[in-house]
């Protein structure tokens, strides 16, 4: 009866992964835009730091 086994098409598996990875990838891109701010030169670095009272 082995010939009756219907294997899941690879395309269906890929489609399922696409369904979750597209919004996920979008989220990661949005987050990375924020995270990049850490590596941008801080304007405060060139300014004198006033001691807090």
């Amino acid at each position, binding site marked *: 009866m082995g010939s009756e*086994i*219907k*294997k*899941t098409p690879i395309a*269906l*598996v890929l489609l*399922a*992964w696409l*369904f*979750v990875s597209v*919004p*996920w990838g*979008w*989220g*990661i891109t*949005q*987050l*990375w835009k*924020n*995270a*990049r*701010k*850490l*590596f*941008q030169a*801080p*304007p*405060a*670095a060139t*300014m004198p*730091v006033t001691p807090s009272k």
Partner: protein
Amino acid sequence: MGAFSFLDRNRSIAQPGFSRWLVPPAALSIHLAIGQAYAFSVFKKPLNYLLQIAASGGGLKALPAVDSANPLDWKFTDLGWIFSIAIVFLGLSAAVFGKWLERAGPRKAMFASAVCFASGFFVSAIGVHLHQLWLLYLGYGVIGGIGLGLGYISPVSTLIKWFPDRPGMATGMAIMGFGGGALIGAPLANNLMAAFRTDHDLGVEKTFLVMGAIYFLAMMFGVFTVRVPQEGWKPEGFAAPAKPRALVTANNVEVNAAFSTPQFWLLWIVLCMNVTAGIGILEQASPMIQELFKGRITASAAAGFVALLSLFNMGGRFVWSSISDYIGRKNTYYAFFILGAILYYLAPRTGASGLNSIPLFVGISAIILTMYGGGFATIPAYLRDLFGTMEVGAIHGRLLTAWSVAGVCGPVLVNYIREYEKSKGVPLADAYSTVLYVMVGLLIVGLIANALVRPVNQKYWYKSAESDKNLATAAV
């Protein structure tokens, strides 16, 4: 119940030829949706301004800075309870419904999770419309929280059964989704609120309605895709190792029996300590980096730092749980606690008064956050090793109460120590050091608990009616 019979466990048994690689995306669709909970804070500021924007006659173009002493509407502290209630109900519902889930199957549990999670948004939208905060507590907090708990544990035991060769990797993938959910939830909510915003309305109510609908549909993908393997199914070419690891059992322990084993409570402490320590960094990441490197890190760069930590928290879930398949769960937690304690101790020394290295501080924090995420993701496979696969979802559900406790105690502990140090006139940078040293102590407690974990005594093993009969025959 005919219309819902497609949710029954026996209707979701996979036919021969079904690809197990369809199950992780099904699990991810649930976890990516419910992971939105971590992004709930994006609603706090708009909810704080509901009344002012409505009364402004369109004059309020930008939201002014928050003044918690003079709230414009609902107070930040009151709004904070929405998330806290949701996390408490996550733990409670996972503990209470875990056994039902094992009986009903993942499809029914995922469906119930989707209904609760979406309803939470809808009830909250009514709460905003009627301006009743208790409806937000009930909606997003209680009903949504139950959805979180059901959704969090629903795919775990199914994934473990589909991937007996890589249980850590499989559950890590799903739990990584929970970490990634906020990455989608936050920009989605911000974009929707921007789209629905008018001169008199910040668009929160409509955003709740649309997000409830979107998440319900996304979770339905998981409901219809998930399958449970047939009894005795094994992946092609898979054979259980001839010499299994010391802690990996081929037997099963029923959830109530597991609850009375020392191993359960040791793992409860392991998870609780790991999460509390991680919260120690997460809770104060932004002010801490600004204080340790005064004048060199802007508020915007600090926000970038927090975002970067989220990425490492998410990535650590997959990486560490996958590594645990090779080095074993116990060794993985040894790494979390030993390496973690060293890094927590070193972190304050990288500040301006010590090594003065921003990259070193960021690197240390990033590794710590991978271990925080890894702790969540590796625990289901640890439970499976000790208690077998039979009721691992239910056992995991009960263990999540450790998360609820850590979620409440962690921030309280961190804030209390910081405020206490401040009140004694200790400089802020040094107050952060004290917090991190306390976290080192918690990690040592976790390390001891992990070291005490031994295989479960066979008196706790589940004996089926069949095996009882065999034992009786053997005795005669």
